[in-house]
């Protein structure tokens, strides 16, 4: 029971982190990062290879790079950094000149390709089999299978999620967040007011990447395995479904969406009596995710908890001569 509860809560924390990052990128700034899951994967792989011993340990049944056997906070910090550092090269190719829908398909293709490359290069991160026996954080000092450890891990994950929530909250309420929304609503107008759209997109891309990397580290530290099958591109779509359902651009909506869609679906199907041939339930689950996106975009495109409308009292002169989209935001 403890194991079940802690697992659900750690997954909830990880999904909340991921949805907050997607909400910042997609909801607030209008960037459709279909390669989001590879940022999470990069964080998870980084944390894994930094905390694993060299690949000759454990009888050498898996091959991977590094294997530095670092102690706890370092792999997580490195995972966050790698998530952040992965963003600029991708952003430089994708975010500078492309139209928004090109950006989305470029990142989708990138996500498919990244998983192909990792699968076909066993020497890098153990290919399709993936990494396993990743040591839990501080497992050399505490028994990672004790109830106290599981609860402490869960508490840690949730605290990190809360911290990131407040950071995200600060970001969207700051002048920087206002610029991001202005860019989302009308990029040309934002540029005309002197906002550097590429720089704005790049920073939010980096912030989202860092959050994604951290979420991957938290997840891999708990489940101790990581393989290409856990980060296929449809996983990104689940997170988008969550943010669309919850309410894009609203951090409370992102949290609600994370609890309803990835966590809720996983738990709901656990209690379903098995029916039909094997594989029918997962297939139906994906159909429901797709249906959820279509349904919400049709009936309630702003989600359950819509982004708060921000109205500022007009300053007279500005309101008269100013650009309408600029004075609105």
């Amino acid at each position, binding site marked *: 029971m403890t194991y079940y509860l802690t697992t659900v809560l750690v997954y909830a924390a990880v999904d909340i982190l991921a949805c907050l990052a997607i909400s910042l990128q997609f909801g607030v700034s209008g960037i459709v990062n279909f390669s989001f899951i590879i940022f999470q994967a990069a964080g998870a792989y980084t944390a894994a290879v930094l905390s694993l011993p060299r690949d000759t340990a454990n009888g050498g049944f898996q091959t991977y790079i590094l294997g530095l056997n670092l102690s706890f906070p370092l792999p997580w910090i490195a995972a966050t950094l790698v998530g952040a550092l992965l963003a600029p090269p991708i952003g430089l190719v994708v975010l500078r000149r492309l139209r928004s*829908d090109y950006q989305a398909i470029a990142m989708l*293709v990138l996500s498919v390709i990244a998983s192909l490359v990792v699968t*076909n290069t066993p020497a890098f991160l153990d290919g399709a089999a993936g990494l396993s026996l990743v040591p839990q954080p501080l497992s050399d000092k505490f028994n990672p299978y004790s109830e106290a450890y599981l609860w402490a891990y869960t508490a840690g994950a949730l605290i990190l999620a809360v911290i990131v929530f407040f950071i995200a909250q600060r970001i969207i309420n700051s002048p920087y967040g206002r610029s991001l929304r202005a860019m989302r609503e009308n990029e040309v107008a934002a540029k005309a007011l002197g906002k550097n759209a590429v720089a704005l997109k790049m920073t939010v891309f980096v912030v989202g990447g860092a959050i994604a990397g951290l979420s991957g580290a938290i997840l891999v530290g708990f489940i101790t395995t990581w393989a290409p099958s856990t980060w296929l591109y449809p996983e990104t779509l689940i997170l988008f479904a969550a943010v669309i359902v919850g309410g894009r651009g609203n951090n409370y909506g992102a949290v609600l969406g994370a609890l309803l869609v990835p966590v809720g679906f996983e738990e709901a199907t656990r209690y379903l009596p098995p029916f039909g041939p094997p*594989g029918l339930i997962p297939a139906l689950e994906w159909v429901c995710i797709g249906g959820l996106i279509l349904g919400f975009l049709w009936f309630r*495109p702003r989600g359950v908890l819509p982004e708060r409308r921000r109205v500022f009292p007009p300053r007279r002169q500005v309101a008269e001569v100013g650009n309408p989209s600029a004075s609105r935001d």
Partner: protein
Amino acid sequence: MSLIVAAFGFGLVSMSIIAISAVGFTMQFGITNMINLAYGQVMIASAYAAYALNNAGVSIWLSLPVGAIFGAVFSFLLNRLVYAPFQRKGTNLIGMVIISLAVSLVIANVMLPIVGYYSVSYHQDPGTTYHFGSIALTGEQILIIALAVVVMLAIYALLRFTRLGKAMRATAANPTLARNCGIPTARVVDLAWLITGALCGVAGTVAGMNSDSFSVASGSEFLIPIIAASILGGAGSPYGAMIGAVIIGEMTEISAAIISPEYKQVVAFAVLVLVMVLRPQGLLAKRGALAAAG
């Protein structure tokens, strides 16, 4: 060296398949301003429709038109029932991309329980093998190449010489103006989805014929070279897509011979990245028959 020449021969086949599919994909984008990411799944669904007939004992070449009709009707309904209503509602480009990805997920997972998880292959007779130097092609592969040439000429004739083609070009260039000039744009768009859907169905079936086996999961694999070829040629431009298909088809096959077949898609992607950095509008943008709107 002879290995590379042989790979060039296979490149002729894969460029033919990519060309048929990429022209359909890019015309959907050009005429309806819609990047249809469910294209790969419609290809696979059509391939399975042809398989159903083929499995019942009909020759694969006679099943091919069934794949084409299935693809045409499926794409038409997809637009009528999903895409067009969302577009009328004013969903932006980004929203449409998310919708088409969600649709692709739904199609794949509705298909899975119906057709099963295992890959299938057509009952076919590849015919005698013909040798041209180091190039060895089966009779079937030569027919695929011939089919692609015929389809490309037909698309050229359609866009160049018919009233419908002219109306399509007008609709692609400026839908509002075209409507004001008395072109029934709604009907043109319907016909465009039928024609591109038929291309999609043909492409799915010949892709199935050319690969040893295919499964539902092949859909996203098909899509990558198609996207690469379309963007390389300039999205929305059918002639650009043809050139893109030639480049991507040859590069992937030759690199498969030199490096490793596993990295075929990676090479297609590398080309895509280079294009996006150096010339994001593609090779032929704004000069093709269907310049991308916006």
